[in-house]
């Protein structure tokens, strides 16, 4: 049945028009036409600018009649447009008055902030026409999709094993063997690999449309082009990056990404998106007009009293996230991704910016964070904050979570790295990190699930490089090695960089296994960096944001070369997944409602029941009581872990467990494969049930279970 409000009411230069509907914002296909809707609190006039796809000049400019405006929203239906073959933009008229925060320029063609598909960078790295007056071009999209019954997986947070990846880096290297390298389709081809590894969640670095040519320059080392490779720079919040799609050149990136997500879900793998609401690609005062500064500068950005851009992001500008209008846009955006793309969760880059007010001051109860925590459409989405920014805020442990937000636990990374190196004075911290950091999150409703534990991520060294380099080597970035973190808490095991030394390499492999085993027995939510499971190296570069080459692309040949590491990581993931006691979401309480005679977590040292918490200690052991798995609702084995970061071997006295149970070795990082890790059901029995010898700089994990 046709609506009575879908026929034209007036004409303009051959175009049939009608007053539009303000909601939804953006461009929406309706029967017979397109509904355009854009808001601006301060614009005095607006024109719709239409291009044929990829043509340099528009074929039409249609002013929005004032009679069509509703409040601050310009809206119009234009009939009979060839929606697959046009691009649209806006001219926004208004004052240019920096003191008032306005930068209107009616000659600029501006992209729709709500554009769901963006052209202009259709194929990654394809040099655009730099004279084009409209570089990033909004297009019209079908946002329908046949999900065939798919819905977000809603895997409990405590059961997640997160794998952080970069779309392009994951399969771009020729060794990946995929048909469509560096794309969403490429990820699909690697689903069997992800299943084999055992991860159940991928966290994808920014997939919104961004400009890979932003700050592009030749490398002083190799001469090749350095790109905006990581993508932490939004051109459009609602559109997936065309250059990440094999079908980008056809404009089908939306369908391709959705198909990839559908396939991932079908294989039990959740998708978390890394989202960047702290700044846009428009940069500082010298930056380009892409959209926001021309549509409504004063609304979208946090400005100084003189009308300059505050720079809490380190990238030139700061999005005005707690402005009610921008808050609405962010909500609309996330709701769109959650409902139209079935996204399972979001990780918020520099999330502390989301807690700054319109003058840049930190807020106690930022309305945006609260809105996201309680939004009904986002109600089952994971929300993860990178709880710091580049303006001095560090909120790990104090990010206002409302019981819903998790955090990237930077303290976990720092403390575990230091302990792995053999530093002292860390026993207290280790005790907290292994339990899920109750010192930070005790009063958060989300308990241990608030803590996303990681030792490596895209920022910083890969795991292989963490054990191969003492210092960063970012010369290839062209900033004289000044960029990137200096405090890496890394240790090269005796030689800086690649070496043929057998003992050093053996120690490096052991240290990687130590890191993985500690990460995967800790309470909280573990996150792995893609490629660590194959010993991927970035050759000492700890800030490879601009390296679109072998430095950051995964080298899949490493899977064979470092089969030992892959098997170990795979085995540890399987171990974690099969032992629910490792995944309790509530914190340890000093009670025994199950009446089993054991606390949920007990601490030990070289002597059972007697942990050495002293400042000089480098040894710790802990035991999880299996009867307290899932807060006592499940029955699991006892799990005992001994960590010896001393350079001498130590004998660890084992705590006694119930008579019918026996200790078996699951992991011993001091032993060569295949005895470094044992599959379920094949764990190695140990003769001496009273003590184990833990090698220097080693981790052992035992399970106490019924005699085989």
């Amino acid at each position, binding site marked *: 049945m046709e609506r009575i409000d879908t026929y034209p009411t007036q004409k303009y230069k051959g175009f049939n028009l009608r007053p539009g509907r303000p909601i939804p914002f953006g461009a929406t296909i309706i029967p017979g036409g397109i509904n355009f809707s854009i808001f601006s609190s301060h614009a005095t006039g607006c024109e719709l600018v239409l291009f044929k796809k990829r043509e340099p000049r528009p074929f039409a400019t249609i002013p929005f009649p004032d009679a069509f405006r509703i409040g601050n929203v310009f809206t119009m239906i234009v009939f009979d447009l060839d929606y697959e073959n046009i691009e649209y933009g806006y001219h926004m008229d208004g004052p240019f008055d920096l003191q008032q925060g306005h930068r209107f320029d009616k000659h600029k063609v501006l992209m729709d902030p709500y554009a769901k598909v963006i052209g202009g960078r259709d194929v990654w790295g394809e040099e655009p026409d730099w004279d084009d007056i409209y570089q990033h071009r909004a297009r019209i999209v079908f946002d329908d999709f046949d999900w065939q019954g798919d819905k977000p997986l809603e895997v409990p947070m405590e059961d997640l094993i997160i794998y952080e990846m970069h779309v392009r880096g994951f399969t771009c290297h020729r060794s990946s063997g995929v048909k469509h390298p560096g794309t969403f389709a490429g990820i699909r081809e690697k689903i069997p690999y992800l299943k084999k590894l055992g991860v159940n969640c991928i966290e994808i670095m920014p997939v919104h449309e961004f400009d890979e040519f932003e700050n592009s320059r030749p490398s002083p080392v190799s001469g090749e082009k350095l790109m905006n490779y990581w993508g932490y720079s939004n051109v459009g919040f609602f559109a997936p990056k065309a250059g990440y799609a094999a*079908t980008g050149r056809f404009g*089908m990136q939306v369908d*391709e990404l959705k198909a990839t997500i559908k396939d991932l879900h079908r294989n039990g793998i959740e998708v978390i998106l890394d989202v960047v609401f702290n700044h846009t690609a428009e940069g500082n005062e010298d930056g380009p007009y892409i959209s926001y500064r021309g549509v409504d500068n004063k609304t979208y950005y946090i400005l100084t009293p003189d009308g300059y851009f505050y720079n809490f992001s380190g990238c030139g500008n700061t999005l005005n996230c707690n402005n009610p209008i921008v808050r609405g846009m962010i909500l609309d955006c996330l709701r769109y991704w959650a409902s139209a793309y079935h996204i399972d969760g979001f990780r918020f880059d520099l999330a502390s910016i989301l807690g700054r007010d319109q003058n840049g001051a930190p807020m106690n109860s930022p309305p945006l964070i609260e809105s996201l925590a309680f939004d009904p459409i986002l109600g089952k989405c994971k929300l993860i904050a990178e709880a710091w920014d580049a303006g001095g805020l560090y909120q790990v442990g104090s990010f206002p979570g409302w019981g819903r937000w998790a955090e990237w636990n930077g303290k976990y990374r720092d403390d575990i790295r230091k302990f792995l190196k053999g530093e002292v004075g860390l026993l207290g911290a280790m005790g907290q990190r292994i339990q899920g950091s109750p010192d930070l999150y005790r009063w958060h409703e989300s308990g241990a699930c608030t803590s996303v534990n990681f030792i490596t991520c895209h920022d910083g060294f890969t795991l292989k490089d963490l054990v191969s380099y003492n210092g960063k080597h970012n010369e290839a970035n062209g900033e004289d090695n000044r960029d990137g973190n200096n405090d890496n808490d890394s240790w090269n095991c005796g030689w800086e960089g690649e070496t043929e030394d057998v003992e050093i390499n053996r120690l490096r492999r052991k240290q990687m296994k130590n890191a993985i085993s500690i990460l995967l027995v800790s309470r909280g939510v573990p996150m792995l960096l893609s490629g660590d499971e194959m010993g991927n190296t970035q050759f000492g570069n700890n800030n490879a944001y601009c390296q679109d080459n072998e430095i950051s692309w995964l080298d899949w040949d490493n899977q064979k070369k470092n089969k030992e590491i892959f098997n170990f990581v795979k085995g540890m993931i399987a171990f974690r997944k099969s032992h629910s006691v490792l995944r309790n979401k509530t914190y340890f309480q000093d009670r025994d409602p199950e009446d089993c005679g054991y606390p949920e977590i007990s601490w030990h040292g070289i002597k059972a029941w007697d942990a050495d918490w002293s400042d000089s200690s480098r040894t710790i052991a802990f035991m999880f009581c299996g009867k307290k798995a899932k807060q006592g609702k499940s029955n699991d084995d006892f799990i005992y872990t001994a960590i010896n970061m001393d350079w001498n071997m130590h004998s660890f006295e084992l705590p006694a467990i119930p008579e019918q149970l026996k200790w078996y070795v699951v992991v011993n990082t001091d032993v060569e494969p295949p005895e470094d890790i044992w599959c379920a059901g094949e764990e190695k029995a140990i003769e001496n049930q009273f003590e184990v010898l833990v090698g220097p700089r080693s981790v052992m994990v035992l399970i106490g279970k019924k005699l085989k």
Partner: protein
Amino acid sequence: METNFSVNYKNKVVKVTLAGSLDAKRAPALADEIKKLIGKDIEKIVFFAKDLEYISSAGLRVIIFSKQKIGTDIKLYMVGATADVLDVIRMSGIDNIMEITDIYEE
């Protein structure tokens, strides 16, 4: 590129021959022809695509639509499609609702 398409229904099988380009301009006409078959006794829809040079999002949607409207139990075949068209079908993920084949046997 012009589209010629023909739709033929006989013995519970719908044969659709495609040529040229199937995009937003041309897809509605094909969708209208498919709509006429709703309610008929159909087991298979076979798309003969050897002369199909290009398929867009709108064209893909007509194919999905045909299965949704005629019946999700029906078998869908894509016969003789070019590598480019198959690439688009696979990358957009609609390959799992159809059987892709070089030759169709009755």
